[in-house]
């Protein structure tokens, strides 16, 4: 598994990728964005060959990353991470609240 700041990219068996996902689009600059910062404008972006990003239909953030060639995870404030081919779950860091939890705003 690979961690870049508040994002964890966790390898999974391709059979674990659920059906019914929708493409998690590209941002206005054509980038595949795993997570973005509204206040800073910084983003965890994946580049490479044969890379697709998918979301569960009712969620804003992408949850699954498929790489058939090679991938490279980049961010303005963190070092780049090369990603080998495979299927991944994308997990955003969270913090505990009594009785609940919420995403981390780094």
């Amino acid at each position, binding site marked *: 598994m690979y961690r870049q700041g508040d994002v964890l990219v966790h390898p999974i068996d391709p059979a674990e*990728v659920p059906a019914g996902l929708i493409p998690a689009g590209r941002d206005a600059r054509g980038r595949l964005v795993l997570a973005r910062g*509204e206040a800073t404008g910084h983003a965890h972006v994946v*580049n490479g060959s044969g890379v697709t990003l998918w979301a569960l239909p009712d969620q804003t953030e992408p949850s699954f990353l498929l790489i058939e060639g090679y991938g490279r995870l980049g961010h303005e404030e*963190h070092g780049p991470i090369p990603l080998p081919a495979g299927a991944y779950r994308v997990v955003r860091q969270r913090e505990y609240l009594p009785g609940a939890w*919420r995403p981390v705003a780094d």
Partner: protein
Amino acid sequence: MTTETPSDHVDPGLRTPHSPEAAGPPDDRSAAALARTADTWLARGLATDPADRATAEAAVRQAYAGAGLATPETIIWLGSPYAGALAAALLTDTTSGAAGPGGFGAAGPGGPSPATSPPGGDPDKSPTGRALAEVTAAIRAQGHEPHRVVTGRSVRARLRTAPWAEARADAVTRLGPAGWAAHWAAGGQRTWHLLNERLVTPLRTRLTDELTREMPAPLVGRARTALLDVVFGQHDAAWLSAFDNDPRVAGLAGVADAAGWWWPYERVVIMTERPVRVERDNLGRLHHGDGPALVYPDGFGLHAWRGMPIPADVAAELPRLTVERIRAERNAEVRRVMLEHFGYDRYLRESKARAIHRDAYGVLWRIELPQDEPLVMVEVVNATPEPDGTSRTYWLRVPPQTRTARAGVAWTFGLTEQEYAPLVQT
């Protein structure tokens, strides 16, 4: 450099999670174009310029004409959605169409009756009484006597709900269910999430509280109705981004690009200004530690910490907190806000917290809180150094039963201690 990766070229060895139907999902180029449109709409939704009143009023007339409605006779401007909702409550009356005996304070010809006075004595000295007097004065300054204004019924359903439903049904037919889902994901979902869920919902909650807590009885019901009859103006950007250039919503879109919340009635339109300030955190939640996160030009504001609205008196206390004050706070949510504002690191230091575990993943800290579950935090050092060579340290709260630093960090990613083992960390 961005590599083109058409979504239909996924390795057959990986299960393709999507089977396109009808027109199918947007390709990469159109997905980026939809995202650019969504960004433009998001900027409109977050705009803090003064309303462009002439443009907004022209767009209102366009919306009325498009819905087959007569042009409204009167347009009244207020400084915030709070003032707008108060004006709507003052001017509407389900029995007579105007603020009759149920009116309040300076609005009614006879002044307040004892039965309609808010708690706390003289209504004009209460915050609600003052706000009502200001709204009444603003309406008078625009040449209207509040008790003589006849608004007619709300036309929100014809003006907003119906065109939206038509545009949506049309898009679903054109794109197919899967195509629509992908179109919405690429061009609307994020704007909706950021504007509707993170901004409008807390604002509505706050307005509901403010407008029903101290309002004299006859106005409470009308204030509630006003919050259902509102059109969100710039905050309609939440859904308009997915319907860019649809002529059926052009009037609504014109108002969204020029003004804040508004109330359309058969004969009268109440319009409001945009905020002068919107402060958000990295996840887009309303968040500000030094003053309100959302501020309107008439002074109405909403204090919020990481998306949680906080009362103004608590907000005023935040800069002067002490460990003792935080410990004495009985409301758990307020205490949480206080803790975060004070800073976990400072609280740890000043309350002489115990480090209960250290490993290669960080340090686990624990502090007992009276009449509350213990505060357990993992202290982590950022893997990538800052430009000056130092490494940023941060604290995350984890469940109280956490026993090791590694288990704490693992929990923040939804994993067990054994599962969490990053190969590379930056």
